């Protein structure tokens, strides 16, 4: 079921979640079957600006602004849980809460200041995060409406812990939030190559949030996902590497990083929706190579090309080839045919075994007013097209 399917569901999902906890087995079955539908409806409602009263998200229609709320699940599984920090409130002293708040803020800032994209939906949707989810929860996820973070192996003796809390790495927070951005734009289905692209966009922009926050060039960046997450008990530096997929960890308990960096090693599996978290290594590495070849800061040019493609150039079931063709064309649209940027994109994809299709020739766009670019509010292609209508 796609989240774009039209349907109507009248039972609120918190009720369904309650039923799953407390209902009879028949009721639970009904609730479980309907929960996914309910999440999708909430997304659709949240996506319609008129469906969300401006006051409820702390903004007016004319002035969308950053609005974060952090909740604590208090080691339970009820979402979103108890509100513990909202926009503008001072730090709480709870590391997970404050990291989730700061990380959502940094991600929001990158998208707003560099890509002129306001929040996950482009219209200022409130950013909700829940921390302290369950006990011993080694994970983070995006449930279609909000981010959720576990505390890792906090319930185990220190000598046995493999994972720290999942808010510890800014790129993990960025990754989760970008799942929201993808959901409201390309809507890539979470399966096969489209799912691996969905994952790659999250890793790429998750890494870009960190690079942007640290002011690192493409060459200076570590290109790791979750560098702070693994404890000293694990032989590994991170969960994934865009620079060298397959090399992030090699551990007695966790095994070896299984990510391929080339189509020759594409993993065919039914697990994890067709290996979305492993095969993402291929498009991840294509972006890395392209960004390095372009030089400078990766979020500026490579990031802009991938952002443009995510917003308007991909179908929901896009393949790696589709992404290669679209980024190759977008590079031509933005920077000119045979530009250094277009060649870098071409080199990125061929490095992973994918040859982008020839592009429709375009002339380089006229230079934009310097005062705009200097202020970091360069209009996006989408906004230019809007103005031309």
């Amino acid at each position, binding site marked *: 079921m796609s989240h774009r399917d039209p349907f109507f569901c009248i039972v609120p999902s918190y009720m369904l979640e309650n039923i799953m906890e407390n209902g009879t*087995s028949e009721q639970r079955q009904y609730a479980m079957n309907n929960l996914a539908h309910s999440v999708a409806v909430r997304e659709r409602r949240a996506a319609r600006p008129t469906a969300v009263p401006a006051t409820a998200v702390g903004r007016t229609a004319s002035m969308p602004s950053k609005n974060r709320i952090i909740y604590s699940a208090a080691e339970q599984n009820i979402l979103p849980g108890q509100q513990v920090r909202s926009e503008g409130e001072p730090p709480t002293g709870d590391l997970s809460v404050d990291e989730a708040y700061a990380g959502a803020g940094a991600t929001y800032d990158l998208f707003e200041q560099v890509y002129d994209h306001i929040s996950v939906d482009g219209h200022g949707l409130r950013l909700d995060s829940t921390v302290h989810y369950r006990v011993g*929860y080694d994970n*983070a*996820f*995006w*449930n279609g409406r909000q981010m959720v973070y576990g505390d890792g192996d906090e319930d185990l003796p220190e000598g046995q812990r493999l994972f720290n809390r999942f808010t510890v790495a800014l790129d993990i927070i960025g990754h989760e939030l970008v*799942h929201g951005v993808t959901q409201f734009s390309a809507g890539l289905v979470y399966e096969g190559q489209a799912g691996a692209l969905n994952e790659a966009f999250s890793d790429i922009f998750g890494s870009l949030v960190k690079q942007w926050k640290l002011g690192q060039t493409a060459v200076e960046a570590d290109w790791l996902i979750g560098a702070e997450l693994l404890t000293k008990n694990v032989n590994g530096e991170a969960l994934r590497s865009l620079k060298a997929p397959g090399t992030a960890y090699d551990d007695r308990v966790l095994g070896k990083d299984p990510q391929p960096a080339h189509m020759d090693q594409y993993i065919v599996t039914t697990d*994890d929706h067709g290996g979305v978290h492993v095969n993402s290594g291929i498009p991840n590495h294509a972006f890395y190579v392209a960004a390095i070849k372009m030089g400078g800061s990766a979020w500026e040019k490579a990031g802009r090309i991938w952002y443009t493609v995510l917003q308007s150039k991909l179908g929901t079931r896009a393949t790696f080839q589709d992404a290669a063709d679209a980024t190759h064309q977008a590079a031509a649209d933005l920077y000119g045919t045979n530009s250094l940027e277009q060649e870098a994109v071409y080199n990125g994809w061929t490095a992973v075994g994918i040859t982008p299709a020839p592009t429709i020739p375009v002339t380089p766009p006229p230079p934009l007013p310097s005062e705009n670019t200097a202020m970091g509010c360069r209009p996006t292609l989408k906004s230019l097209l809007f103005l031309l209508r």
Partner: protein
Amino acid sequence: MEIYFKRTGGFMGRSIMRMVDTAVLPHEKATALRTLVTQADFFELPSETAVSSSIADQFEYTVLIDDGKTHRHRIKRGDSTIPSTLWPLMRELTTLTHSEYGRAIDDIPIGDGGGDDNFSPAAVPHRPPLQP
């Protein structure tokens, strides 16, 4: 009691597939595990729940438990459909499969009852426990 455990997906995308046999566990660990199975009301849980495709990075679990007597049941769950009563068992199994007690397996065996593993022991003839 034999427990087959598979976990896929999650942020890390790392798959776990292991089995744990309470016969080889230290006595107190085996007792604790049996208690968690009881507390979860495992054999009465619906066998499968829809895993939402709009949830990114969630874990998906497949667990089969054979108590060697009257119960053999298999369930499949996503993170969002695990009731709080079942979570402690899932957590303990994750930890156990990371320990020396977890044994590598190729697949999770099918449960009794074919497509619907939700069977009543009284209605379905008992099948002997799986051979390792």
